[in-house]
């Protein structure tokens, strides 16, 4: 068996020494950027390679991060649909425009509420576990072992998680879109007294395919943010046991903020540059 020359990922060293002071922030930004570039590189690489163990890891991550979140996302989306229809109908009741609540469901369900809700649910469920898992691997020297074998930890640990989330989040968002609408229909027909055909007609008039597409694009963006923020927090953890919990907490906080900040930027772009879509 011959040993072939090693291939190098573009990002190079992604582990940034943890210090205090001004250099830390800059170093973390550089480190996080390198992590993102390297992870995206390996993500593309994984699509075309079937030889590596990392490929089979995607399946495991999909089960853990995607299928594992099904019940949470499905039940939450259904409830959010009910909450949304009640809340909007309640606000519009004074104007005699309760029927507009159905249009509202169609307006912001697919484009805004479903992708953001799914992203936040996945953050709540998985960001801490991603960061905790990688942090514990770091403290157990598993990441050092990978590097000592000349293996890139980003390829074997981060890229499969990123791949799984990039697949799972849009899929969960589509599911959430459906259940959010179902919750709206249940609320409007059972509790507000609108007929099914009226709901369907109002929904059809308000719903636009581009809203669904924008929601899915957002979910992919959120997948990148969640995977990279949580992985970065875990993989760069300090080598002490208490740091694992701190990294998990930081991962959740930063991923939530990251998702909301990205959503704000996207919405601002669509608002100020209407011709963008």
């Amino acid at each position, binding site marked *: 068996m*011959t040993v*072939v*020359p090693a291939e*190098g990922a573009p990002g190079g060293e992604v582990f940034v020494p943890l210090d205090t002071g001004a250099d830390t922030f800059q170093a973390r930004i550089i480190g996080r950027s390198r992590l993102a570039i390297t992870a995206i590189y390996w993500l593309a690489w994984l699509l075309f390679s079937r030889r590596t*163990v990392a490929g089979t890891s995607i399946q495991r991550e999909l089960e853990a991060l995607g299928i594992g979140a099904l019940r949470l996302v499905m039940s939450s989306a259904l409830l959010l649909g009910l909450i949304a229809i009640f809340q909007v109908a309640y606000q519009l009741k004074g104007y005699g425009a309760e029927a507009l609540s159905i249009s509202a469901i169609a307006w912001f369900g697919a484009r805004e509420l479903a992708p953001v809700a799914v992203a936040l649910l996945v953050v709540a469920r998985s960001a801490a576990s991603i960061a905790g898992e990688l942090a514990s691997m770091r403290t157990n*020297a*598993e990441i*050092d072992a990978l*590097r000592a*074998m000349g293996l890139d930890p980003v390829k074997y640990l981060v890229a499969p998680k990123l791949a799984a989330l990039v697949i799972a989040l849009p899929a969960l968002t589509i599911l959430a879109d459906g259940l959010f609408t179902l919750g709206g229909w249940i609320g409007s027909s059972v509790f507000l007294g609108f007929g099914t055909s009226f709901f369907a007609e109002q929904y059809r008039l308000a719903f636009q395919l581009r809203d669904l597409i924008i929601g899915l694009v957002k979910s992919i963006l959120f997948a990148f943010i969640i995977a990279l923020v949580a992985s970065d927090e875990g993989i760069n953890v300090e080598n002490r046991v208490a740091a694992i919990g701190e990294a998990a907490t930081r991962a959740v906080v930063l991923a939530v903020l990251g998702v909301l900040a990205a959503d704000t930027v996207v919405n601002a772009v669509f608002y100020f540059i209407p011709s963008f879509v």
Partner: protein
Amino acid sequence: MTDDLALEVQHLTGPTGAPVLFDVSMSVPYGRTCVVLGPIHSGKTVLLRHIVGLEAGSSGTIVVDGEDFDARGESEVVLRRMRTRLGVVFQGSALINRLTVLENVELPLLEHTSATAQEAREVARELLSAVGLQAAGAAIEETSCAHLDRAAQRRVALARALALRPAVLLLDEPTLGLDSHSAAELDHTLERLQDTSGFSVVIFSHEVRHAFGRVDRIFVMVKGTMIESGTRETLQKSQHDMVRRLLNRRGAA
């Protein structure tokens, strides 16, 4: 540099910024077994991490299998080339717990060789057999490493470290946490594998019990400095109390 050296550390000081090692030098001939002996926090693991390129030093050179590497840091591509010539068994084994036993051993083969998945699997099975895990058969191959006992984990780590047929095998406290029977079996396995494959062995340890009969040279490290080196016989006559204490520590006989 000498041609018959599998590993040579020349005037290593590091890590950068907060040095723990001070002008450390050592050399390991091909096919020989050496022990870096020192008390806890003497810098043994830091030295191992420098040799593997996990830490960057402020000065020094590491020579692995005839090729020089700058201890101050090399590119990832150069480090990967160096790491294929080194096998490392970390303290606590450091197996990838989320992977099965077989997948752990396959990892370096799939990454660094042109072996197909099937070939890598066969080689991994041979390695597991060579380290004495063949008795458990297919059941253990598909077991997650997290579910193995400490002795079995150490053997899997050994199989993984030998996957690329390294010139030098580095073991950090290989028998730490093992009962005396398991430790002796691991020593025996290591000696047998060294006989058949001819790799050099460097054991980083606070005692010289394991592989004792095999040790050609002992490097004594205290507070990041190599204070003395030699055979057990010569070191027994050392003027340093610490050296004699370490050599005569319980379990050294």
